[in-house]
């Protein structure tokens, strides 16, 4: 009797242990997912940035996991929608750091939301890869903050280099009043002297304006204008392009990477012919020569995205791809998710080929792109063509 009792109790004990076992063994480090934190402007006025970014992150995290994950661990995305509000971005960044305890942050669609989270990442010592454009994010260099998109300063420089090649030096500016427009205009004014470019006219238009003839007429009548640059975003640049043609202005017109999409050509119609703009190579992925080292990455990303979401690829989603892959590479190289080691590995990134270009980071450069990241495109026959 006593023996049966003891065997029975033993059996119960074993059963209990078997039940309890997963609770004890599960949270070993090897099984726990690596948490990628993200706050993006998925809704609101900046949703054209956040939406493709989130889709890209979700799609590629799934892919990385299907391929076995990183360091033998799965990736897990924790993302929040800041709706383009910097204060919400700061709260969500706090949440990612304090509550979700993520290993790395890849996010921040706008400059405002990124800058609101920068002090938190710096204080908490967590690698933060921003997806926003402005130079202020990485200048001055912040220990824990990196970014993947090219800056508007580089777009200006790309245009100025092209102007130099065409032996033009007197430039008229016409820009809108949005954040992108203002930031790029300021950067262009700043770097113009370096390239011996004279800004001879500097006109602006409002966000909802439907006619820019007045400003363009003023530029047309400015003595010596050899080219016009329109740092702009949204519908404005298409209207500028149309008015430009209607007024019969014959000097070259440059647009910015802000309108580097098929939408612009659709809106501007025939007037877009001959317009040049600096853009990410993603836009002309298939047209790149086979010898181009970037082609493989671009075509693969473009086809995956367009295949899955049935919508045109955008450079913004590409920035998220680069951010995620940089983080993955850094963790692989560091051999752990230790934040300081991952940060060091990120800073030591060399020769990484992303959708934005070749990334060579250093202690002084937390973006790592050079002017080759931009391609000069021209509209010909209703399509983008690479300028040789």
């Amino acid at each position, binding site marked *: 009797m006593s023996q049966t009792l003891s065997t029975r109790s033993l059996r119960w004990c074993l059963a209990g242990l078997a039940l309890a076992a997963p609770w004890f063994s599960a949270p070993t480090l090897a099984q726990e997912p690596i948490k990628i934190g993200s706050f993006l402007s998925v*809704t609101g006025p900046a949703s054209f940035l956040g939406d493709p970014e989130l889709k890209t992150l979700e799609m590629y995290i799934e892919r990385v996991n299907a391929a076995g994950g990183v360091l033998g661990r799965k990736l897990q995305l924790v993302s*929040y*929608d800041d709706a*383009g*509000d*910097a*204060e*919400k971005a*700061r*709260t969500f960044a*706090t*949440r990612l*750091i*304090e*509550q979700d305890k993520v290993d790395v942050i890849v996010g921040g669609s*706008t*400059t*405002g939301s990124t*800058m*609101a989270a*920068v*002090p938190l990442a710096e204080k908490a010592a967590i690698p933060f890869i921003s997806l926003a454009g*402005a130079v*202020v994010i990485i200048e001055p260099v912040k220990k824990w903050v990196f970014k993947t998109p090219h800056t508007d300063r580089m777009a200006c420089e790309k245009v100025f280099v092209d102007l130099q090649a065409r032996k033009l030096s007197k430039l008229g500016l016409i820009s809108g*009043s*949005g*954040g992108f427009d*203002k*930031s790029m205009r*300021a950067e262009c004014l700043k770097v113009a002297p370096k390239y011996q470019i004279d800004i001879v006219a500097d006109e602006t238009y409002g966000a909802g304006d439907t006619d820019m003839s007045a400003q363009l007429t003023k530029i047309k009548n400015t003595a010596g204008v050899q080219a016009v640059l329109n740092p702009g975003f949204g519908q404005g640049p298409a209207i500028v392009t149309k008015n430009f043609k209607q007024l019969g202005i014959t000097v070259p017109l440059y647009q910015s990477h802000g309108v580097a999409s098929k939408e612009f050509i659709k809106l501007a119609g025939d007037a877009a012919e001959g317009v040049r703009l600096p853009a990410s190579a993603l836009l002309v992925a298939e047209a790149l020569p086979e010898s181009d080292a970037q082609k493989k990455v671009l075509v693969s990303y473009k086809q995956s995205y367009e295949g899955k979401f049935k919508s045109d690829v955008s450079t913004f989603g590409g920035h998220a791809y680069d951010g995620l892959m940089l983080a993955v590479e850094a963790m692989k190289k560091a051999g752990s998710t230790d934040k300081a080691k991952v940060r060091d590995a990120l800073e030591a990134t060399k020769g990484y080929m992303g959708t934005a270009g070749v990334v060579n980071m250093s202690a002084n450069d937390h973006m790592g792109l050079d002017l080759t990241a931009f391609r000069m495109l021209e509209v010909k026959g209703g399509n983008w063509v690479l300028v040789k």
Partner: protein
Amino acid sequence: MSHYRSSRHHGLIALAAIIALLPLVLSNKYFYDVAILIGFNAIVCIGLNLLIGYAGQISLGHAGFFGLGAYASAILTGNYGWPPVIAALAGMAGVGSLAFLAGRPILKLKGHYLAMATLGLGIIISLVIVNQDRLTGGPDGITVGPFSVLGFALENERAWYWFIGGLLLLTVWLSQNLIDSPMGRALRALHSSEVGAQAAGINAAAHKLQIFVLSATFAAGAGSLAAHYSGFITPAKAGFIHSVELVTMVVLGGMASIYGAVVGAAVLTLLPQILTVLKDYEMVVLGAVMMATMIFLPRGLVPSLAALCERWRDLLPPSLVLRLEALIGRGRKP
């Protein structure tokens, strides 16, 4: 008369107790952060409720005042090296003067026209902030240094929590005193009938202007501190959407109720944080919650629930009610 004072103090004591006990459940900086945001929103909403709920004057431009206060602090401390307290006070004084000057003509309008005029004022402020980029940093925003009082810097969330908690209590106390003063009674008279109030000898224009200026000053003060707390401010905080958010908090919490403003601010700051688990459906559920509140509790959370409690009390046996009231130390209103 005496029971007014006691009920007033009970509310204040309850709020103080909540603020004092909350840190027991705030386990990390994130929870502190949300609590602090509630505090900022509550301060603005109390001011706004004085204007909307008590005086019956709508303002769709309050985010503009909030933004002006924030930018005044950012620019005066950042570019001119002013001490944060002086900058905040200067911002409040500046916004108060602006509200005084703009309020004189604007407050002559009524209903939709007043809403449009305040909306216009808010949009002008936000446009100025966006376009004066040399000073304000433009649409990308501007960095703001930490806040300090007499050399004592508010560096961590905990310090900010106690500071804002104290400030919220002070705001509630001041507002309650104001409402129970002759001025408050005049405002409520104005709300029910402006002609009637004027016939009773109340200077309507002056009273409306005073409360408008006070309300704007509250918003500016909260804006200044919020800017220091965030460390970064963008023009979105001065924009129309933020104005609407503030009015929504007031209406949801309950018009003409100080605690309604606090509850409204708390609910609408917390809900988006809680609803993030719903991902794509977040906005749908948030909208449904707000619609349901307005349909079933049309006077807002606090006044409607208070009325509901009152009705339930009548259903209970009187002896139990008396005992309960003795417990919470409150007598039935005569």
